[in-house]
């Protein structure tokens, strides 16, 4: 993922339910401006909602970085959710459908991964968690690499 255009991120705070609504709204409007179709917009907003809520609920708050991308062939959106909370001890377990450490459905992380084209989690116990999700307007067919 090498954006040829300069990646200017928009940083949004995640500290309350109202902030979550704001992140969703921002992602929806950016996605629409970048040329994402309605279904893709809905998927991006839903993924953002899941990941931002994890940042709030499990990470104790943090911020979202929303960055428009252009790889020269198509445009995309990178969403990064950053907290300095407890981190995820067992990432494989956390990524399992249905696993929750609270009373959730346990579909936020694993579901969000399916809603985007590139997905990566950078976490360290005691240090925090950064989740990165990228979607492209016109993805290269059958290429779904992960991000570090």
């Amino acid at each position, binding site marked *: 993922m090498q954006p040829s*255009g300069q990646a*200017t991120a*928009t940083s*949004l705070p995640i500290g309350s*339910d*109202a902030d*979550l*609504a*704001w992140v*969703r709204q*921002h992602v*929806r*409007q*950016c996605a629409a*401006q*970048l040329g994402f179709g*309605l*279904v893709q*917009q*809905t*998927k991006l*907003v*839903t993924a953002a*909602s*899941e990941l931002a*809520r994890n940042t709030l609920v499990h990470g104790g708050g943090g911020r979202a970085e*929303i960055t*428009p991308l*252009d790889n020269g062939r198509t*445009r995309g959106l990178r969403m990064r959710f950053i907290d300095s909370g407890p981190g995820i001890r067992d990432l494989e377990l956390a990524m399992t*459908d249905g696993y929750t450490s609270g009373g*959730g*459905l346990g*579909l*936020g992380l*694993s*579901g*969000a991964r*399916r*809603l985007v084209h590139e997905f990566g989690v950078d976490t360290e116990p005691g240090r925090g968690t950064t989740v990165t999700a990228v979607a492209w307007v016109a993805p290269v067919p059958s290429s779904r690499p992960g991000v570090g």
Partner: protein
Amino acid sequence: MLALTLLLCTLRLVVMETALDANAELIERQRQQLLEVATPVIKLWEGTVAVPLIGTLDSARSQVVMESLLEAIVDQRARYAILDITGVPTVDSLVAQHLMKTVAAARLMGAECIVSGIRPAIAQTIVQLGIDLGTVLTRASLSDALAYALSKQGIEVSRTDAGASAR
């Protein structure tokens, strides 16, 4: 073009931020008011109630919806309750969980719940998220849900001769 998009995103953000600072308290107060106002339970027919949900379905909102729906089920002796989500822009795992809890609670009160108004983009997203709404009765639109509830109660809606010729 990308630069323009970036600029627009950034500009809008600045505008939003300024507005929020100035009106944070007002917005919070209005949000509280909306909590109460925006969840009317409507009696559609004898034994059938409906809630048209509009906007974000966060935990506080869901709690209010559930309470007023259960209350209406008792008051109206409703056997059928319709949750219409046409006006809900995002259905993520938390919203889905709230919906399922409301359906389960209504069931305990002796009412069957029907969720209507799941738009195509939302349906696709729900499936990919992995949410299983298999136990929830759904209909495409509020009118389909009403037709279902009526027919289950043995009520038939038909066009009279007069109505047909007037068309």
